[in-house]
């Protein structure tokens, strides 16, 4: 009732409004660029337009690139740490409730084990699946191998530079270092055999009843090596005491879950994210016609940041999984 009463009162204001923002941007532009303002009125020269377009384009390129770099290096760590916190809690509950997975088939993205490397100070919850998107949350277990801690060879992938870079320091491991894996069946302690790069011979076959853990990440060379992981590096570790592995695990994984592979399946999602960004831009343009700039800023910036964040996460899925 009250609403219907108020409405007539509000209408004149809303009617008047469109004129105000129309005037305001003009004035603001004038304020911001005092120099062009005094120039005689007339069509802006072609040099003017070109300069403005170029400058805006470069700004956009800079924003997009820097945002992305920032998310890969810094913002991503935040989300990865949060994901780890949640996964840790979940795994703890699962272990306590004896409901942690033992394989052979585990839903992708579920926490399966806690990986601890004391010498490097790494403590990460390993999730199931090695697609680029799965590795955003933490190291991922390759699905066609046994779970860490079980008899046979288990392979775990981890990111080297982005999203918390859990495996960044992996190449610093030495033979004899210990890796501890806590899974559904118990704790397994692996001893590192060594770091293996392209051309090195594969380690000897696993002894019967033993287990092997192969950690996989990437590394770069040179001054920018820390942020340019381009070749795959392996760390093999063996244990003599491993737990039995149930049969029936898949014999192959999709291409997107192999080392340095990308997941092209994220393209439609990316299109959706970009469309939303576009919609947001149009929304901002429209809103500036009606609302004050401050209001538009307040409303639009969180949306813009959230959308950019989400879009970058999707872009990450299209990039090689070990970055």
């Amino acid at each position, binding site marked *: 009732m009250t609403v219907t009463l108020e409405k007539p009162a509000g209408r004149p204001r809303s009617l008047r409004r469109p004129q105000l923002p129309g005037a305001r941007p003009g004035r603001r532009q004038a304020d911001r660029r005092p120099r062009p303002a005094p120039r005689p009125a007339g069509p802006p020269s072609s*040099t003017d337009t070109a300069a403005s377009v170029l*400058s805006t384009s470069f*700004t956009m390129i800079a924003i997009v690139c820097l945002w992305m770099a920032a998310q890969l290096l810094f913002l991503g760590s935040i989300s990865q740490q949060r994901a780890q916190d949640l996964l840790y809690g979940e795994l703890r509950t699962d272990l306590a409730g004896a409901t942690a997975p033992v394989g052979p088939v585990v839903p992708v993205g579920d926490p399966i084990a806690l990986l601890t490397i004391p010498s490097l100070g790494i403590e990460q919850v390993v999730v199931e699946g090695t697609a680029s998107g799965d590795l955003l949350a933490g190291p991922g277990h390759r699905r066609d*191998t046994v779970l860490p801690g079980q008899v046979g060879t288990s392979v775990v992938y981890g990111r080297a530079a982005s999203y918390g870079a859990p495996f960044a320091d992996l190449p610093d491991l030495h033979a004899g270092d210990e890796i501890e894996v806590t899974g559904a069946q118990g704790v397994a302690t692996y001893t590192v055999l060594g770091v293996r790069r392209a051309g090195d011979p594969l380690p000897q*076959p696993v002894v019967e009843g033993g287990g092997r853990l192969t950690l996989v990440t990437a590394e770069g060379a040179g001054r920018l090596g820390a942020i340019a992981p381009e070749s795959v590096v392996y760390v093999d570790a063996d244990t003599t005491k491993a737990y039995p592995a149930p049969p029936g695990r898949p014999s192959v994984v999709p291409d997107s879950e192999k080392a340095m592979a990308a997941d092209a399946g994220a393209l439609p999602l990316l299109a959706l994210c970009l469309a939303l960004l576009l919609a947001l831009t149009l929304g901002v343009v429209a809103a500036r016609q009606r609302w004050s700039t401050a209001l538009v800023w307040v409303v639009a910036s969180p949306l813009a940041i959230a959308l950019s964040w989400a879009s970058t996460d999707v872009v990450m899925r299209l990039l090689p999984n070990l970055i």
Partner: protein
Amino acid sequence: MRRALALALLVIGLAVPAAAGARPVVGGGFEGSRGSGASAPSHLDRRTARAGAPSHLDRRTAKSGWSETKTLSRKFVQADGSTYSFPSHTVTVTADETTNLRGRQRILIRWKGAQPSGGRASNPYGENGLNQEYPVVVMQCRGVDDLSLPAKKQLRPETCWTASVVQRSQITRSEGEASWTHDLAAAPEDKGRITGLDPFPTAEECPAADISPYFTKLTPFATAKGETFVACDADHMPPEAAVDAAFPPAEIAAFTDTDGTGSVQFEVRTDVENESLGCSDKVACSIVVIPIVGLSCDQPSTPMTISDQACRKGGRFPAGSSNFANEGVDQAASPALWWAPSNWQNRFSIPITFGLPPDTCDLLDPRPPTGFYGSELLAQAALQWAPAYCLNKQRFKFQLNQMPDIAGWNLMENGGGVAAEVSSEHPRSGTDPIGYAPTAVTGFAIGYQIDKPDNAGEYTDLRLNGRLLAKLLTQSYLGSDLGRAHPGIGDNPLAIMSDPEFIKLNPGLSPNAQEAGATVLSLSNSSDVIEQLTDYIAHDQAAMAFIHGKKDPWGMVVNPKYKNIDVPRADWPMLDTYVPETQNTCRQDNPAVYFSQLAAPVSTMRDIADALLDSWPNVQTRCEKDLGTGLYKLGRIDRQSYGSRFMLGIVSLGDADRYGLRAAALEAKPGTYVEPDSRSLAAAVQLADQRKKYHPFALDQGDVRRSGAAYPGTMVVYTAARLQNLAKDDAAKVAQFIRISTTEGQKTGSGNGELPGGFLPITRTGPTAKLFDAAQETADAIEAQHTTGPAPTDGPDAGGSDGGSVAPPPGVPDEEEPSTEPVPSAAPSAPPTAVSMPATEPVGSELAGGLLPLLILLGAVGCVAATALRVAAPVVRRRG
């Protein structure tokens, strides 16, 4: 202009006959092939010629068929001592299969030249067939007609099986019903008042038998073990003849049409089904066919007694008439006196032999069996194949354990079984590559048992299309008025017989709905058969439109619970939840989902075949009150009565052939209906192609729908086994089985090791040659067990690619190969000495390496450039 017109006329002239020639049902062509190969005479009418035809692949008529001709006539000795003969009948009886029969197998018996029957009964089996005139009695008897054999192995009326006492004995008949006492062929001692057994049973044993002045003639039954049942009342009959016995009566008083022809599918019983009769591979038996031409009568006394007159009666029903009311008939022309010597001497005795019983291998071969697990489609073949393995010491002991295809597959994959019998590709869950070897070509059929209205015999031309099957499977028929209140489909037909689409396709059937007509008896568990059937539906546009909710042209809609159900699928779920609300106390006490009671799927196709044999639908809607507890209970409805049978079920072609079940023609090309026979199966095999070595052949239902000659239910059964990590002796057994079953096992016949009917032989040449080659190839690979053999799914082209420069296959999976991993069944693991290992392959990505530096660089450049432009632009302008 004129030339164009002439050309057009020519084209039309050529096209019209061609179209007309293409018109008939494809299965129709099978009659021709059957007629030429078999002794089926061309002047038999179409109905009888077709009667056994559907689904009978390569019948061995020429080899194991049987035929005999006799001249029968009825004679009266007149009062003056002269003999009067009725016109004689030259009767020819043929049987299509007589050797190596199995329990419940149905064989087709046909005759021509017989006296036309009258007073046709709606149910000709057992005692229900007694009230007919001039029928042809067909029954199974122990012993054979061979005078050189000892009396024990001879055929006598006492060794012929009947399921009731009135079929064999005449007890306390009045004189007017004692025509047998004047039988011309009877010995004088058989013409007395009480005859049939000497000494005659005492009054204590048979109180009703000897009551003066009534006449009694007993035909005792002698069991295989030598026991004699005097057959004077129901208590003195063998146990298998009890009321509501496990099997319905098989003996039949069959009807001869007015042109003197007739046919019947006679079900034979072994000692497993009927121990008293006791026929087996060791005890010879016969099928006795007695065309009743009427009793021959001896010289009457003057004046004629009532029994003299009774003997001379010639029937009260005109030829071809029906006897719906089950009225009494003239005894002299009825089947009840089949044992009377003048009838008995007219018999055709068809000697039959039985195959080895299913448990032969268990009894004769003490070796442990090697189990193959899976498809029921192979059941009939395995029954004949198994003795060829276990009775030959050079071979292993083969055993087929029937289970859902996927269960057999899983057993094979995890080492529980050496090989699986499957009929489609299954996803691998283990690491070992699997090879598929084609072993048999067969398939499924929609079996049916449908009677034409007005006692006109069985319907033999059923045609079904994808939409009708979809309607049946999606439970879109209402069944009865109980289904009317089902939300959303209340206006649908009650059952398929009242569906206008079905009536249009199969005209001339009774449109009276029965609950059994609302469903097709199907499998409750997962099966490749269901997958193929639903795949067939999935390729039928009309059927899919129906499933997606479009009304059919007559306004029928899909059951909303099944709307948009995913097909193809290997198991068919029961999704409906509708519980009818009714005043019926029984249903109120036992609330149940009505449509699930109608469908009531079973777990094996053999059960479906049995249900069809007995025409006993598995519809569970019968309500009974248990008088003991006063509680209501639901159960299976009664067997359907003859004359109004209607039942559909999914059966294997092997079962359909063995038990003489009719198979529906399925729509292939729109408007073309294809029956399963050797030609349509071969056409389907020709369409199937193998995608990869050791893989199965895929039959695309889309191709089937285009070809118009291929039977959509064709399925190839494969022996699937691991190509790696199978123990060596097991691998040798599997390879041996594949080789033997694709060579020796493809010889059609009914003997041990031969291929039964319902299967298309796989041969070196012809359309099945590719299957033969694939089988040999796979057998070699299975036997070889190459450890580094072909890994069909992980080829060198399987590396990841992200548009950039992603590398060759990662080196990691190599070391994950099971060869380095202790598999429980694997041979001793790697020796402790160092093995030279291959080098790690380089895997890398320039994109991964360059991305971050590039981003930062670009960002920096962008910042600098933008700033520079901002700063520089006014400067430039001012100068300008």
